[in-house]
């Protein structure tokens, strides 16, 4: 017992000694790393030595000390830096010099060899992973025999498991209070101790054999150990036997004795600790999960998906029925009875918002509608950069995992499943296609009609990819002949196929698309009758495009409004008046309010739009019911725009007054003034007068069609009267809204005074339906007859001018006295200039040093060559001299 402890202790000590630098070169499993560490240590120590060496250090003398200033360069190591520079040149410049005029090059094709950014460990890891991947090809997918060895720190896990079993049994048998080698190693030797143990033990014995005594001792102990082991095994068997027997009678025992309990308690204590250590040692590090996809990736996937769908559709259009290759494969377990599981109705595991999703089980076998829904979702993802797409992918992965788990339980189709799952990994959403394929498979043979049917449906189906239109006619041809929903879908797909992150030119393409789309909207609005529902469905597309490219949307809108305003201005200049803007312009203005915030104080789009509206309200002649409708639409838009900001639009009030004036039967009174474009009297100044009071009874409130700005459909007198009443209703409602909006203005009463007079005295309300009368009454209640009271105006209170302070003004000095210049730009300029100068000088210096180095190497090369040559010449001379000498000697000898 004791001697074993000694042995183990010495082992540990030796281990400690061995871990000193320099000696452990080829000993352990990871020599490379060790060496690098030791190198580092040595270098650092050398560096420290140099630093300590007063002859190496050059102290830069300071003229005077400045408090708080940190100087980097008070101490320099010229020798070190020189040698560093020299070494660097040797590795770079010299190499280049040597390789000069040499055409061939040595290229290391290993992964990441020239990638300086990668850490060497990463490189190794990556290489290893690649090698593994290469070996794990498809051919040995089903190779069950060649199981790869799992390792931890380069050691087989399987072995380790065996090993720990032994330890367990040993530690079990060990008496309490004694430290086993295993335990000491694991407890005190750090995490790696366990793993090194075996090898170190062997070595230990080798070392000890020299001392015979000890050897004997060991031999003895070994013998004893063996004996003991055999003994233990025997006892073990016996105990196991006993245990089994004990188990059989365990139930008979009612309760345990306290002593037994104590023992049980004590033992787990140790075990728990050990287990913990082991667990920590072997704990798998957290695996990196799949990273979140960037919006670009999502967009790319989306495009690929659409392209795939398109290719598929095309194929179907050409009549090739998809022969599903997966089902041609027959399983080994196939009974060949023609039965194929065509629908997987097993539950699949999927998560939604972190919860296990049980309801949504149709992971496979989705149908068309759902796919459309998905597209809608994806749309959202585009905007929000959300993770809907990822969720889907994750779902699929989950499916796979699930299936893998279930493979063991499944007895049939298991391998079929597997092959299918692999494919599913990349075309998860295509299941419905597969559905079709598989159903086709069931029927095996398709009749000609069915084939044709598929072809037809494919033809009717929309293509999945669209090129972005280059000009307006392109867009028109693309959209024409489709229903509104289809047009929406087409635009959606175009947008996805040309997402700006997919290619460089896509951004401008989509920006252009926005312009064309608006043009298209304008054209739809000018149709007769205007296709407003189509426009309505296009709005989300326009909105999302504008969200993508605010700048382009702004420009397009600006140019539209600018052009319209320009033409209106011109016609006013020439003719003195202008026609009310058409329905297309009204729609544009409405779109402006949808796309841009109208409440901004100044906005590049909405401010001009406001001006345009007010200009139209102030200048456009009111000649017909159509123009009244258009004007009313403008008024509505204007009210909408200011409903948040409560800004005052004089033209709006003027216009409403003018419209109400048109309903007044006699134009003799002059106690209120109408403002141009309305005239107190004259033609078309009784446009809204209701001809037949009887028609008021049959009037019911309903919304006016937008297209009546284009053409009023009412033909009979009664219909026209109804229309007029509707217009008046809208008018009064707008007036009411305005009163609510402008209630707070100081001149509120003056603003609404004319309208009040008109409503109270001149409007023939009694002839109107009750709804109108009610509105009329409400308005009159809201507008006071006498002006409200206000405090006289006073200037805003000025802030008191602060007293002059005599504190010093603190100016931030960034770099002491270096940078002149007052403004930020000047300072920056000076700084950059200085930096440039410094860099330039540095570069010059470096170049000079380089040339000096090269000259030096050249010189040393020539010197070396000269020396060589001299040596050789000397040698030759020497040999010649000896020859000569020999020859002379021979001659002499002969002569003699």
């Amino acid at each position, binding site marked *: 017992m004791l001697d074993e402890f000694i042995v183990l202790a010495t082992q540990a000590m030796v281990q400690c000694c061995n871990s000193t630098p320099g000696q452990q070169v080829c000993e352990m499993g990871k020599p490379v790393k060790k060496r690098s560490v030791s190198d580092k240590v040595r270098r650092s120590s050398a560096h420290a030595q140099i630093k300590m060496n007063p002859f190496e250090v050059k102290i830069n003398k300071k003229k005077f000390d400045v408090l708080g200033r940190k100087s980097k360069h008070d101490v320099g190591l010229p020798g070190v830096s020189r040698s560093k520079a020299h070494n660097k040149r040797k590795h770079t410049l010299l190499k280049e010099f040597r390789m000069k005029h040499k055409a061939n090059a040595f290229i290391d094709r290993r992964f990441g060899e020239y990638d300086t950014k990668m850490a060497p460990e990463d490189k190794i890891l990556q290489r290893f992973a690649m090698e593994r991947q290469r070996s794990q090809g498809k051919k040995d997918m089903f190779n069950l025999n060649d199981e790869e060895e799992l390792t931890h720190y380069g050691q087989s896990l399987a072995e380790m498991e065996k090993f720990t079993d032994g330890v367990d049994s040993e530690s079990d048998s060990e008496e309490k209070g004694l430290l086993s080698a295993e335990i000491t190693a694991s407890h005190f030797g750090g995490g790696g101790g366990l793993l090194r143990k075996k090898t170190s033990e062997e070595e230990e014995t080798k070392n000890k054999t020299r001392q015979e005594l000890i050897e004997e001792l060991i031999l003895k102990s070994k013998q004893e150990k063996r004996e003991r082991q055999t003994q233990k095994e025997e006892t073990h068997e016996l105990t196991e036997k006993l245990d089994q027997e004990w188990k059989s009678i365990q139930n008979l025992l009612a309760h345990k004795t306290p002593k037994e309990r104590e023992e049980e308690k004590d033992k787990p204590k140790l075990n728990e600790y050990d287990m913990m250590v082991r667990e920590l040692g072997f704990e798998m590090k957290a695996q990196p999960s799949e990273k979140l996809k960037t919006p670009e990736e999502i967009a790319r996937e989306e495009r690929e998906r659409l392209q795939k769908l398109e290719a598929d559709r095309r194929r179907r259009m050409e009549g090739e029925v998809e022969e599903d290759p997966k089902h041609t494969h027959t399983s080994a377990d196939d009974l060949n009875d023609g039965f194929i599981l065509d629908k997987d109705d097993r539950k699949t595991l999927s998560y939604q918002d972190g919860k296990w999703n049980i309801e949504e089980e149709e992971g496979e076998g989705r149908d068309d509608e759902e796919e459309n829904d998905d597209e809608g979702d994806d749309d959202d993802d585009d905007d929000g950069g959300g993770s809907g797409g990822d969720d889907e992918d994750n779902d699929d992965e989950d499916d796979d995992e699930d299936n893998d788990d279930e493979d063991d339980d499944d007895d049939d189709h298991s391998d079929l499943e597997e092959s299918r799952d692999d494919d599913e990994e990349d075309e998860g959403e295509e299941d419905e296609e597969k559905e079709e394929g598989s159903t086709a498979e069931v029927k095996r043979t398709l009749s000609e009609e069915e084939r044709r049917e598929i072809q037809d449906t494919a033809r009717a189906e929309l293509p999945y990819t669209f090129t972005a239109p280059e000009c307006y006619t392109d867009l028109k041809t693309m959209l024409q002949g489709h229903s509104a929903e289809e047009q929406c879908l087409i635009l959606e797909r175009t947008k996805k196929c040309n997402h700006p992150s997919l290619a460089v030119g896509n951004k401008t393409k989509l920006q252009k698309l926005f312009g064309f789309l608006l043009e298209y909207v304008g054209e739809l609005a000018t149709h007769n009758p205007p296709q407003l529902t189509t426009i309505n469905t296009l709005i989300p597309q326009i*909105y999302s495009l504008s969200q993508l490219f*605010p700048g382009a949307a702004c420009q397009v809108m600006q140019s539209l409004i600018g052009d319209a305003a320009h033409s209106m201005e011109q016609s006013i200049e020439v003719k003195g008046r202008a026609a009310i803007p058409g329905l297309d312009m009204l729609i544009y203005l409405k779109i402006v309010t949808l796309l*841009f915030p109208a409440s901004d104080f100044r906005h590049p789009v909405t401010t*001009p739009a406001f*001006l345009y509206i*007010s200009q139209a309200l102030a200048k456009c002649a009111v000649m017909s019911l159509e123009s009244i409708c258009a004007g009313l639409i403008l008024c509505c838009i204007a009210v909408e725009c200011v409903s*948040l900001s409560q800004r005052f639009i004089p033209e709006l009030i003027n216009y409403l007054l003018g419209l109400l004036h048109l309903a007044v039967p006699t134009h003799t009174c002059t106690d209120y003034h109408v403002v141009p474009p309305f005239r107190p009297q004259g033609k078309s100044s009784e446009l809204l007068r209701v001809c037949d009071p009887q028609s008021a009874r049959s009037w019911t409130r309903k919304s*006016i069609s937008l297209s009546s700005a284009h053409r009023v459909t009412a033909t009979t007198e009664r219909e026209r009267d109804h229309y007029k009443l509707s217009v008046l209703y809208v008018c009064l*409602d707008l007036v009411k809204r305005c009163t609510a909006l402008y209630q707070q203005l100081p001149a509120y009463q003056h603003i609404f005074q004319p309208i009040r007079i008109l409503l109270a005295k001149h409007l023939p309300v009694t002839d109107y339906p009750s709804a109108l009368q009610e509105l009329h009454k409400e308005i009159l209640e809201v507008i006071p007859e006498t002006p409200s009271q206000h405090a006289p105006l006073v200037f805003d209170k000025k802030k008191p001018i602060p007293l002059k302070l005599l504190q010093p003004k603190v100016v931030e000095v960034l770099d002491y006295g270096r940078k002149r210049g007052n403004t930020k730009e000047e300072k920056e300029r000076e700084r950059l200039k200085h930096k440039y100068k410094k860099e330039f000088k540095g570069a010059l210096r470096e170049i000079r040093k380089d040339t000096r180095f090269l000259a030096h190497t050249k010189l040393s090369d020539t010197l070396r060559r000269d020396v060589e040559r001299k040596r050789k010449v000397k040698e030759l001379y020497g040999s010649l001299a000896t020859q000569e000498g020999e020859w002379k000697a021979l001659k002499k000898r002969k002569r003699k």
Partner: protein
Amino acid sequence: MAVGAVSHDLRAHEGDIYTLELGACVFLSDGADNMAPSKKHNVKKSEAENRQTSYKQVINTKTELILQSRKHANSVFDLLEYLQSEKEKEVVCAINACQKLFCELLERGELYAGQLPKEEEILQGDRDADEKYHMFIRHRYNSCVELLVENIGHESYQVKESALCAIMKFAAAEGKHPLQKQDWSQHYSFPKELISGVVWALLSEKEDMALLISRFQEFLEMDDVRYYVMNSARDNIHRVMDRNKRAEMPVYQNNVFTLLTNITVPSQGSEITNFLVKQEGKYEDWKAAKLKEHKRAFELMWLTFLKYKLPMSMYKKVLVILHDSVLPHMSDPTLMIDFLTAAYNVGGAISLLALNGLFVLIHEHNLDYPDFYKKLYNLLDPSVFHVKYRARFFHLSNIFLSSSHLPVYLVAAFIKRLSRLALTAPPTGLLIVLPFICNLIRRHPSCRVLIHRPSAADETCTDPYVMEEEDPAQCHALESSLWEIKTLQNHYHPDVSKAAKAINQALPEPEDDISDLLELSTFELMERDLKSQSQSVPLEFDSAPSLLQSPREVLGLHFSLE
């Protein structure tokens, strides 16, 4: 030699002339001498295309022939017939030919000068053949001029223009070679009849001659022509208007106006050097060479024109140019007072326009106009912000109200009224009127109480200002405050709102320059926003599911898509 030949030719022709006069327009073709009628016969009979190409040749050769020898003189009738042709090109060609022919003849002195006996009397008198020939040519010349004047009323502009030019050429030629016997009491001669004929033709009662009159302007550069045109125009207006019993005649008056506006009198007497007809003798005595006479003629012409009732649009047109191109050239501008006062009393836009002329008279000619400011005050109504002449009006009001001697109550009344009217004004108008009001307050510091009344800051009161009061002294403007401007601080346009916010602080000393703002149009205002390239464009964050579905929908409540 040559004279002998000519006389012989004439003798040979005498018979023809005689028959001509008797047989009206029927030509008797007798003998080889009379080639022209037969030729004409051929022309008539020949094909249309032939004619088209040949009429030029025919006309040219005839002119040549007439010029070559007297025996072809009868061809003149053919030329004159061409002048009445229905084909535009033929007429133009004929006009040119006539012009060439008669100018040449005038130069040669072959036209009879002096009192012309009647056509029938030519043969009766005891005259030699030469004289007879001259008389004959002179008669043809006269009828040619008549035809040309008629042609000025032709529907084709080309014909009109060439006719006009031809007459003016004749006038020039006549000036050089006067057809009147030199009257020794007056040492100058001028073809007045021709000019008055042109003027009568130009001032048509039926069609708009604006184009031709602008062509005529070239001739109006010449001082003597202008002088006589002015005289004959006056005469013309007088007669035509009296004949029509002083009723409005839009077309005619428009023509007159165009002609009148094209006449500009030189500002200095030394500039009168450009004459159509060079007089040999004394310039000084000639009326057309005197600036004073010019001015008189100009003044009389305009006064005659304005004496009669004008259509409204014409009224405006006249008033627009009056101060600039009429008043300075009159010898006595005060004569316009009646006209301007009448216009000022009409009201509306015409009053606004009359202001300008009145201003000139008040400013330069010491006109004392009672209650001028009261009238000006009453001119202010909502339409001043909407009329075309807004810039002019504010420019003038700015001048009128720039006097520092005006009473405070008056200025305050103006300020208050303008700000009340501003509640209905378009943004461009507001951008004028807001700095305008601020300027008035600056000029008259005692009006500062309108925007700053700390003494009664706590007491609330209703607006004491009476908008309906016509007398600025009685309207209590000075007791009020500019709550309207305060209201306009909430105007939708950022520039207006900013301008209105100026009254929140004490106004800085220097006045705002409103001259740049006067002509500002809505589009220019819009362009400020359109052109400024801002980096970021804020977007609506509420998504738009459909056209009529927004968080603050009003349109959708009243209108539907179908």
